[in-house]
């Protein structure tokens, strides 16, 4: 039997902080507090431990080890004093999956209307997987996928189904 197109694994222990602000005005302050450069639109920057993703023209998502959330929240709030901004701990709001293996892009191609031929190396894509909202970016040779906490079982199931052995998208 052929191998699964990718291995789907739930990831725990990540913290997430939502940041809404005028990135042109507050970008430098956020970058300093987060310890990462501000990503270009539709991109994500990472230092291996922390990642900072562009979510919308005035929204960023900081992904970091859960143990660092409290301190990072304080740093960001401190950095944005006097600035119109919203910083919120959303660590529990989402479910995280990692796709690793031979063809993780093909798994996502079955669920997300995304052109992987044109997906940049540092891209962050907010889209849907079948009927639920997701975002994803490259993590090593695979992908990290975030979805809503309440639909985590559904998301895990459709990722597994899309990865079944022998179902690759290569021309046959």
């Amino acid at each position, binding site marked *: 039997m052929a191998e699964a197109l990718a291995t789907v694994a739930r990831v725990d222990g990540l913290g997430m902080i939502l940041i809404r602000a005028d990135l042109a005005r507050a970008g430098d302050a956020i970058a300093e507090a987060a310890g990462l450069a501000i990503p270009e639109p539709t991109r994500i920057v990472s230092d291996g431990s922390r990642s900072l993703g562009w979510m919308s023209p005035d929204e960023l998502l900081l992904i970091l080890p859960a143990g660092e959330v409290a301190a990072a929240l304080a740093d960001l709030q401190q950095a944005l004093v006097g600035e119109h901004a*919203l910083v919120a701990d959303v660590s529990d709001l989402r479910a995280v999956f990692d796709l690793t293996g031979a063809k993780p892009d093909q798994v996502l191609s079955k669920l997300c209307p995304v052109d992987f031929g*044109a997906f940049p190396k540092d891209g962050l894509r907010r889209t849907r997987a079948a009927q639920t909202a997701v975002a994803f970016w490259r993590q090593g040779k695979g992908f990290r996928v975030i979805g809503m906490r309440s*639909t985590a079982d559904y998301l895990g199931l459709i990722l597994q189904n899309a990865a079944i052995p022998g179902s690759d*998208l290569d021309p046959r």
Partner: protein
Amino acid sequence: MSQSRPFRLPKGGRLIDRAYQLPFRFDGRHLRGLEGDTLASALLANGQLMMGRSFKYHRPRGPVASGAEEPNALFGLGQGGRFEPNQRATTTALVQGMILRSQNCWPSLDADVGEINNWLSPMLPAGFYYKTFIHPRPFWKHLFEPIIRRSAGLGRAPTDPDPDRYEQAYDFADVVVVGGGIAGLKAALAAAKGRRRVLVLEQSPNWGGRTPVDHKGGEAEIEALLAELRAKKTVTLRRNTMATGLYDHGYLLAREALADHDPNAGIPRQRLWRIRAGQVITATGALERPLAFSGNDVPGVMLASAVRDFIVDYGVALGQRVVVVTNNDDAYRTALVAADAGLEVAAVLDARVQAEGELVQAVRARNIPVLTNTAIAKVKGSRQVEGVSICDQSGDGHVTGGIDCDVVAMSGGWSPVVHLWSHCGGKLIWDEAQAMFRPDPDRPPLGADGKGNVTAVGAAAGDLRAAGDLERDEGQTQPVWVMPAQAPYKLRAKMWLDYQNDVKVTDVELAAREGYASVEHTKRYTTLGMATDQGKVSNINGLAILSKALDQPIPATGTTTFRPPYTPLTLGTIAADARGDAFQPLRKTPMHDWHARNGAHWEPVGLWRRAYAYPKGGEDVHAAVAREVLAVRNSVGLLDASTLGKILVKGPDAGRFLDMIYTGMMSSLPVGKCRYGLVCSENGFLSDDGVVARLSDDTWLCHTTTGGADRIHAHMEDWLQCEWWDWQVYTANATEQYAQVAVAGPKARELLQRLPGTIDVSPEALPFMAWAEGELAGIPARIYRISFSGELSFELAVPAGRGLELWEALHQAGRDLGVTAYGTEAMHILRAEKGYIMIGDESDGTVIPQDLGLGWAISKKKPDYIGKRAQARSHMIDGNRWRLVGLESLDGRMIPDGAYAVDAGENANGQKKMQGRVTSTYHSPTLNRPIAMGLVRHGPERMGQVIDFPTPSGETIRARIVDPVFYDKEGGRLNG
């Protein structure tokens, strides 16, 4: 001529492998085919010519085509959940062990009782079904309708769930070429420049289209093209992938067959590709048209191209002695192929007066008789061709001779496959010289930039000689719509246009006589082109006949609409993975598994599943609900309220913003306090409600209903982004960040005080409508002192990941207090006992807050809020609106939900006038009697009056109008 049968030729067949035999079953008989066979070629090789019965007259039918256009050879395939009706024998690959069942016949294909319809055919003309509506009237209901209903429908629907897996996938390409024939492959090669991504889709398992069959050296040329394309990284070649439909913006759907041939491979059976194409090139080829002569549906009459396909591709001959009948040069290829295969070609009958092309010369050189200006007057034989009588094409069918034969290979010319081109708005022109509709290159489907985004090439564009250097000089096609030209009614009544639906030349003529001038109307009236082949072989002939009958040129008649899919798609492919547990996302709260373990009876609330009640032991649901209500009233209950929407609103203008969103005043709410708020639409109607807490100077947390979370967040962002774009406000939907638990009942405070923590929940520290935060049971928590039950009540919010931990800690600590998990139904009853409204029960999109006695939640001081102006319109303030009251059943029976209260008099339609309706109705366990709320005209001014609620059973329930607060009117229980 003696009986003969189709057979496998001793050699030949470029697609079959004679070394591998595949056993299969057909109507219970055990047969053998070869690797590479289709069902049609395998059946023919076994001598089986008859493959179906027509729909209306149950006439015996053999295959007439060799591809996707086949109207006759349809089978029920497989067994149980894998049974599929209407599978096309000409495009379905033979698989070892396949089980085929013939359709539309009883008791069997050979001896079909329905064949009697054939003899009744003069009584079943076009539109006979519609005529049964009219006259004689009782006949329709009692005679025709029950019989027609039973006999309608081709094939049986499967009854078991489909065990196969299906999937979808997305793809993107700069150029998609549809069709892997010579024109498509050449177009793909031309398109594959630079970094342009080119995707080539071929519906069959084999590349090349007609070229390998029709041209010497064709196979080699195709192989060379494929080799060149395969060497390019930017080109993707997909076989077994049928483009089913083209939609706006280059959105192309295609179905790839993955495991049709091997259902047990464990992989998806089919895949639906959802492709975004920059440009689409349709290289979909052309379909050969039948000729309309009497008896053209007798098994053994086949399209000329199909006759040679079966010989060249599968080494299968339809019979021993062939007559070719044509109006063009192309059909002469069939004569040559048949002669090469060792068959006898009795004659080529050519409707044209002159036939001099290279192919014609080649046939004459073989000493095959070519008879010009010659037509078939009639096919002899009923179950199988036994011969033809011939006549002059220009005449009225006067028979001039006869020829014995068992195969009639007919060709009425070719029609480009224009389906994809037409799906998305591409226009056609009538090409008089070639007698065909072809794509008008000046009026293609348009892309977003207003320029054409579809190009037709090769035969699909009307270029029937697309093989370039391989082609030979051909004479012109002569349009022949009726054979012979002056055929009398008797002959025309046996000339089939639509084989599957039994539509004949005379049916279309009848429709024209009866006033059906529009081709679309004629289609529906006669059912021409309405079968599973969607008229692929019949449409052009049909509209040519209609044009003649209407005495107008063919372009004035036009074509019917081409709609996707090109060939039928199985529903499984469209549903794909959305079945079983993946049918829809099921939203689960952090405590979902606990509810499941504790026997929750579920209620769907949007995509959430919430616990309706938790029946215990032998308890039924109603008993569980009653127990849960009483536990809250008497001790303490726990409700999983995690699904409530929680929207953060922050910024210098947040207070001003919320004063517009809510009817009440939120900017004046002190930090640390909560306030109940109502959200209305611009039209003033109540949209949502919930408790708002002020978290800090510039931050509010807005609770919404479960169903309102996304909707109200979108409502807020809509107003912020579109209307008040310069207000400094940020929102965030934090609904799923928190698990929320309502702790309600006289012992709620005692329970909370038993848990270790840093939050003082005493009445002094945490009064009604206040909130506090800190730690509870070691978990960071916010506690809101709010109540939806009328009891002393707290709502606890903790990070979702720790919700279950808190929930279990509360159960643990309150065991001796009788702590009880309660579900949504108990929650509903508790609020109804208190006269609290529920969005979606008391409101339905036509109700304003004033109707519900919620004027107290509307600020009179504010200059504006969303809905304020609308609520001042005359109809909103005229005093005649139905308003909220309580309803007390006089005899102890429950009033049904939604029941209407009748008024005196009747309206203009003779219906009783109404004066109110029930919005909520329950049995109250607390009061041990039914309670109800409803909206009644002038209701609050009519306390004590009795109104009538007639029920469907004919009985009337009488109810007294009372205060909607049934329990604890003073509200003392809020404080425990």
